């Protein structure tokens, strides 16, 4: 059923259009259900297309469908179309699958929000854009999706716009992403100027004889775009702030799907990366350093969502490390398994936040395992998965990357392993502080109103609406909130089966082979080395868990373990704001006040003043004879013109 492909894109788009124009008529819960149905339908269509592709033999698993010609100008011809191949359909499957669960969850989570319908409008538009990004058959339509998801991200981070922090966070995300997109656009110019097309197939078939310098420039410029979208160093500062958005948004956009677009783009462009080993090394190093730096910051955060945000940055770093080691299969594997457990972590965190009336500070949580058993249980699965404990999916996917990294450079591998230790540590700290020990929320939150000056999920004025019922004991949400948790937990348990590193069970690697080619996978390593690396990281992960348990168990006040440098993200935001906001602002003010007003306009006004001194015409004009003046000038023009004309003609 390859013909189901248009439906993958169209269903969320139609959902978006219907909700935009007649959401009000549909009413509140119905709008959410419609949006969910649209995305679920898209998932079903993806499954059908997937099944059709599986039916082809591996050499022919690439089907192009062109829908219409978008921009035709001379030699520049761009279509709206899709390239259905193992990579794009894998992305579509997990994007629509996870989106469906999160849409479902949101129906309850966003209940009674005055902007309920608008939330689903944005969410459906997001899903459409994300699918355009991954399914596109050319760089430009991918870029449409790329900017589209960025726009939705902006709209959803600033969703509770009356809070200044949310509004600023949305704007920051968009602008920081645009810095990366600048690189993306220049890369497209370079690609077109060399190959004369932006179609993936066309570009990749024109790579014979391109120079290494060209390939490196394109790769690094695309990397700039990817670094912005996937919040890698040095453009990572927007993602923690993005947590201002509603928690389902954090789960869907800022953890499971959109932020992985950078990894997807790198994988899609792998034929270009293959021509430029130096770029691959840069990508790998950047990924490894980002993974490490973000993990250290995650160790010192108190806000549960911020821990998860830094964790996302760190995990994306792993994926870039995988790409740099040409282990595209492993990177994609980790992308999928990360989508399972990180979406679960956020949704479970949302469940906690929801139950505690919008509390996000872990220091004011504790002991929640008793009152939120489903949340705590599913959270624990995700905790083990991200920490790298077998048999959960994170163990397999992370080890696939680390194994490939070892092949590229033992130093990169070592950085990755240290990050494993930190990951296990900060996740265990989160687990212990949130779910075990004494309940600190009763004393912290006697009433229902948020503590002033403290980060709370919703603006103060909107907490009462649907949440008055939470004044008493915290409790689990309804089934539409718990079912997604349970499904994602199940996937986190069995997700490793996608790509096991032995017995020829690397399904995902083999599945992606025809798309990426030239990839490294663990099959090339000796069994002894493979098992040795697996055991080493497992020991490290267990140590991290033990360390955090030892330090934080029944002891939640440990400021000495939360140095200000880490808690403040190495003061990167302060640095950027000093350089760009203050520095740029000063330059802008200088240009506006000194250059524009004094130099340029001063010159003009000086000339005008001279003229004014010479005649009374202007003075009369200012006293009300403007019309005469204007007509006089026009008439004068014609006279002068006629005069000069007669001279010219003679």
């Amino acid at each position: 059923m390859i013909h189901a492909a248009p439906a993958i894109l169209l269903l969320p788009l139609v959902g978006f259009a219907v909700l935009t124009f007649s959401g009000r008529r549909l009413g509140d819960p119905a709008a959410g259900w419609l949006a969910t149905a649209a995305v679920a339908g898209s998932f079903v269509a993806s499954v059908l297309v997937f099944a059709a592709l599986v039916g082809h033999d591996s050499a022919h698993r690439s089907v192009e469908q062109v829908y219409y010609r978008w921009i035709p100008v001379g030699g520049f011809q761009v279509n709206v179309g899709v390239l259905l191949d193992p990579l794009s359909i894998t992305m579509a499957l997990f994007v629509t699958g996870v989106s469906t669960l999160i849409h479902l969850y949101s129906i309850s989570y966003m209940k009674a929000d005055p902007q309920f319908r608008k939330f689903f409008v944005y969410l459906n538009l997001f899903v459409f854009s994300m699918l355009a990004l991954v399914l596109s058959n050319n760089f430009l339509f991918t870029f449409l999706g790329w900017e589209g998801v960025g726009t939705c991200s902006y709209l959803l981070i600033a969703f509770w716009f009356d809070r200044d922090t949310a509004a600023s966070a949305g704007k920051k995300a968009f602008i920081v992403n645009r810095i990366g997109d600048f690189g993306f656009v220049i890369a497209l110019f370079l690609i077109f100027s060399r190959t004369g097309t932006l179609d993936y197939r066309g570009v990749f078939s024109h790579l014979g004889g391109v120079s290494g310098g060209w390939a490196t420039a394109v790769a690094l410029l695309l990397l700039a775009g990817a670094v912005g979208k996937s919040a890698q160093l040095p453009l990572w500062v927007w993602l923690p702030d993005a947590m201002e958005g509603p928690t389902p948004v954090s789960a869907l956009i800022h953890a499971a799907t959109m932020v992985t677009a950078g990894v997807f783009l790198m994988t899609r462009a792998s034929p270009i990366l293959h021509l430029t080993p130096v770029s691959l090394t840069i990508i790998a190093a950047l990924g490894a350093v980002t993974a490490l730096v973000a993990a250290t910051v995650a160790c010192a955060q108190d806000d549960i969502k911020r821990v998860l945000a830094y964790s996302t940055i760190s995990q994306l770093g792993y994926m870039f490390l995988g790409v740099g080691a040409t282990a595209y299969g492993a990177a994609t594997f980790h992308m999928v398994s990360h989508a399972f457990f990180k979406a679960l972590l956020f949704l479970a965190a949302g469940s906690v936040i929801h139950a505690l009336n919008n509390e996000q500070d872990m220091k004011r949580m504790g002991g929640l395992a008793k009152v939120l058993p489903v949340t705590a249980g599913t959270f624990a699965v995700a905790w083990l998965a991200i920490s790298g404990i077998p048999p959960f999916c994170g163990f397999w996917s992370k080890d696939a990357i680390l194994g490939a990294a070892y092949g590229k450079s033992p130093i990169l591998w070592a950085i990755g392993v240290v990050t494993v230790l930190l990951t296990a540590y900060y996740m265990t700290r989160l687990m212990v502080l949130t779910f075990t020990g004494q309940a600190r929320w009763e004393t912290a939150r006697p009433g229902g109103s948020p503590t002033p000056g403290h980060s709370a999920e919703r603006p103060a004025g909107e907490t009462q609406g649907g949440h008055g019922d939470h004044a008493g004991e915290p409790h689990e949400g309804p089934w539409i909130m718990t079912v997604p948790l349970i499904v994602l937990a199940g996937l986190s348990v069995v997700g490793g089966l996608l790509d096991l590193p032995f017995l020829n069970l690397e399904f995902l690697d083999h599945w992606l082979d025809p798309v990426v080619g030239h990839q490294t996978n663990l099959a090339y390593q000796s069994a002894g080395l493979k098992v040795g690396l697996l055991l080493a990281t497992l020991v490290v992960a267990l140590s991290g868990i033990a360390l955090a348990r030892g330090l934080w168990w029944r002891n939640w006040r440990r400021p000495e373990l939360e140095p200000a440098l880490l808690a403040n993200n190495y003061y990167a935001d302060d640095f950027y704001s000093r350089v760009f906001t203050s520095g740029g602002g000063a330059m802008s003010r200088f240009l506006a006040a000194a250059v524009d007003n004094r130099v340029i306009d001063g010159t003009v006004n000086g000339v005008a003043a001279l003229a004014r001194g010479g005649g009374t015409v202007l003075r009369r004009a200012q006293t009300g004879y403007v019309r005469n003046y204007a007509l006089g000038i026009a008439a004068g023009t014609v006279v002068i013109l006629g005069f000069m004309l007669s001279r010219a003609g003679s």
Partner: protein
Amino acid sequence: MIPVSTASGGFPFPILPAIVIAPAIAAVLLFFLPRGRPGLAKAVGIGASLVTLGLALAMAVRFETGQPGYQFVVSHSWIPAFGVSWKLGVDGISVFLVAVTAVLFPVAIAGPRTGEDPKGYMAWMLLLEAACLGSFLSLDLFLFFLFFELTLPPMYMLIGKWGFENRSYAAIKFFIYTFAGSALMLIAMLALVFIDARSTGVVTFDLIANTTAQHVSSGIGAVLFLGFAAAFAVKIPVFPFHTWLPDAQVEAPTGGSMVLAGVLFNLGTYGLVRFCIELFPRASVDLAPLMLTLGAVGIVYGFLVAVVQTDLKRMIAYTLVADLGVVVVGLFGLTTQGISGGVYQMVNHGVSMAAMFLLIGMVVDRLGTRQLTAMGGLQARTPILAAVFIVVTLSIVGVPGLNGFVGEFVMLLGTFLTHRWWAVAAAVGMVLSALVFLWAYQQVFHGRPTAHAAGVAVADLGWRELAAVAPLVFLIVLLGVYPRPFFERINPSATRVVAHVGQVTGQYPPAVAEGARP
């Protein structure tokens, strides 16, 4: 040779003169209308602009695809002694500029609230429309100059009489500035005609004849190019000839602001293609680095100055300098993509910026201030206005799927093929424009209302306002999603211009990759 078709296109009357004359007749009628009938004056104004719209759309629909030359050409000798004729024609460069002008005027006339003396206001608006349409359609240098100058008095009156508190200063500054530029163009025009006449023995202001003549030496050509460019650089406006713009734009009434941003600037960028590049191909190639540099500097400069403004209209006015700088960079890449994309972007920018100033007018009317520091929190109180505003904002910022992206990407791609680093510099605008526009949006719509804003009763968009802005939003989406029919009409003429440059100079288009030939 530029192909010229005099076919009527099936219209029972010459369509192009009708497009120009319809608003002019209505304007004259309005002057004779009794003073005490504001409703009638408005009806005449709206009706006449709608009739013009109908004519222009019919023309655009009948416009033949795939033709590089001029269509629907009419020509009558006017001042035979000087070779001046009443000659009108339309090609791919001008067809959508005419159409978008005809779309924007009814919206600018009917959309915003009109102040006192609607009769005079309507008359000047219609006169302005006739002058703008005449400028786009003229195929005679003298006729073009007349129409081009005729845009000044109406605009002057609209700012000077119906503007904000400091309108008088702004109006005079606008007039003197643009008039100074025009004077240089006039001299250059006469010199060109004179020089061509010396070689051919025939004095003619015919645009096509002067385009094909090419008797000017490269040194003189450069001087004459600069004479024309001066007029257009002021009109566009190009940095550093822009300081009339913020004042004029801020003080103009909403309708005037819309026309300034949506139509009048297009006259300047259109002039660059039609006159600077077509008449002086060699000088265009030689001086392209100058124009590209002014454009690129204007982009960065415009946005940087915009971001610290505290007056909403002034802030957006400075972004015009930047946005139009991008168009200049696109055009002077001198490639098919650069010129096609540049023309497309003129249309886009006209639609989006007219919509932007219409919406700004609605915000300012509601809050009674232009000061950003006195706004805030409007999204909660006027969600529909906010939604429309964000769509227009995203279109200007260049989010793909909406119109701005298509034009900007195509023209910068074109320039990249020949002048790589200028295109890169211009692309910095995509970061800065996001910075400026999202900052403006945040201050107006996000957060909580300031004390001033909270103190005013504010209603969301009414039906009349929605009806005014809806066609513009429709175009913003259409031009972004389905640009093909537009490009199919623009491309042949853009290719003609580039080929003309290549033929005269023998060096364009320069060598680029096989498939990427511009």
